[in-house]
């Protein structure tokens, strides 16, 4: 159980505001911190990691107190043992991929974990290269692997995918999920991308101006109710074509184009470029095992 009670005054271009967050997270959860930029998302990660000082409140992780203003307890970032993936990756330019991972080893820690991570995150071909020769997605994978070397219990991801294009994003989301499950992590992801939050997380904290607007499962937050026998996906309207008495609407969703029939009434509300939600009734779906996940169960 991770208990967080944060209070910090933040200075921003839009004026000062108070970051005031209080929540409890169960171990093993994938938590997304969602909100527009400047809402204090990154600061929350930095406070958990101990890189920024909070004004008051406390942070306790599995009954260990990391920060407690009233008793002046404040563990240094070195002692908190979290994995942190920075937005700019922050790989050490003077070291190769493998050296970056080896630098992260604890004193006396076995090197086995390095080979395991290189295999899990598929870095074998990259291990002797310097960071400057890697693409954004590759750097991201190295940063993810490096954050995992010390086998932390908590993984903090600061908008790790914002600089990547669609396909690369999908692939990295899969790596993140894989690592999250394999190492039994409690993961905090900062994101402003609804589809990403939907895909990855099982708990969402929605921030606005430094305080929690809403929290709950992604379905509760974004769909407003618990779903039953329905699958909902988000997309963008590409075109609306009238055809006899109905309309054919093409929607782009996760790189797929879905064709949906809409009545004239429904189509009247829609125009090209609209963000839409498509609910599919899943009374007879075809279900198959995803072969990408079978190697590691």
């Amino acid at each position: 159980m991770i208990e967080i009670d944060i209070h910090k005054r933040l200075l921003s271009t839009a004026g000062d505001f108070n970051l005031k967050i209080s929540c409890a997270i169960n171990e093993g959860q994938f938590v997304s911190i969602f909100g527009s930029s400047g809402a204090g998302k990154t600061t929350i990660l930095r406070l958990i990691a101990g890189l920024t000082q909070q004004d008051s409140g406390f942070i306790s992780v599995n009954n260990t107190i990391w920060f407690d203003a009233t008793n002046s307890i404040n563990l240094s970032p070195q002692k908190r043992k979290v994995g942190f993936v920075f937005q700019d990756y922050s790989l050490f330019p003077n070291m190769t991929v493998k050296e970056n991972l080896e630098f992260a080893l604890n004193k006396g820690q076995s090197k086995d974990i390095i080979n395991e991570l290189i295999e899990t995150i598929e870095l074998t071909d990259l291990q002797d290269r310097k960071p400057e020769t890697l693409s954004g997605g590759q750097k991201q994978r190295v940063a993810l692997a490096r954050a995992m070397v010390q086998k932390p219990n908590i993984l903090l991801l600061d908008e790790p995918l914002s600089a990547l294009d669609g396909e690369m994003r999908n692939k990295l989301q899969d790596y993140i999920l894989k690592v999250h499950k394999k190492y039994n992590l409690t993961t905090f992801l900062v994101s402003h991308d609804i589809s990403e939050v939907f895909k990855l997380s099982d708990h969402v904290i929605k921030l606005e101006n430094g305080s929690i607007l809403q929290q709950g499962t992604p379905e509760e937050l974004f769909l407003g109710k618990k779903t039953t026998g329905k699958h909902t996906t988000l997309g963008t309207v590409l075109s609306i074509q009238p055809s006899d008495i109905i309309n054919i609407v093409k929607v782009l969703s996760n790189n797929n184009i879905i064709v949906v029939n809409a009545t004239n009434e429904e189509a009247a509300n829609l125009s090209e470029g609209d963000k839409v939600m498509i609910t599919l009734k899943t009374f007879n779906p075809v279900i198959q095992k995803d072969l990408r996940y079978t190697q590691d169960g």
Partner: protein
Amino acid sequence: MLDWSPIILTLQLALITTVILFVISIPLAYWMANSKSRIKPIIEALVSLPLVLPPTVLGFYLLIAFSPESAIGAFLNDVFGLKLAFSFAGLVIGSIIYSLPFMVQPLQAGFSSLPSSLSEASFVLGKSKYQTITKVLIPNIKKSILTGIVLTFAHTVGEFGIVLMIGGNIPNQTKVVSIAIYDEVESLNYSTAHVYSGILLAVTFAILLLVYINNNRSNKSSK
């Protein structure tokens, strides 16, 4: 026959000064690059003073401080048996103060140019400040380090006023090349002055040339 001792003495002084300054300046420059302390502007101003102050002013104050009649001079003499005025050790201390900005400023600029997330990433991985500076930061500011070392070395080789004030003109002790040239010119011995000057010119030009060749190369390779 040319007396080589002023040249050797100059190189010795420059080498010792550069090594000591490097060791002192790394932590000082790191602090200056990262500190938000209120006394930081004071320290910065003090470090930069030798850039604008005439060397004779610095030399004059040091001479007074080193003299056995002053409190500092008497203390050093009584406790450590150190006589700094008109000695090589005194020259080293003078040079360290005089060349301080030439080492500290490039290093400080180097540390400031690195994104703060680089050291934060290292801290989160459980690494101490010392490990972070030696293994992560220093290897990534090699160019600034080279600049600092070369400027310090060349500046120490070229110092004159401060040596004259606190060192005088004692062969094998404080008679560095710049003093020797002055000495030879005063006794109208132009040919020896020519040789010393030529050597100094050639050495300093060669050092700077090497640095710029190296800089241009690393600029190309990083593009």
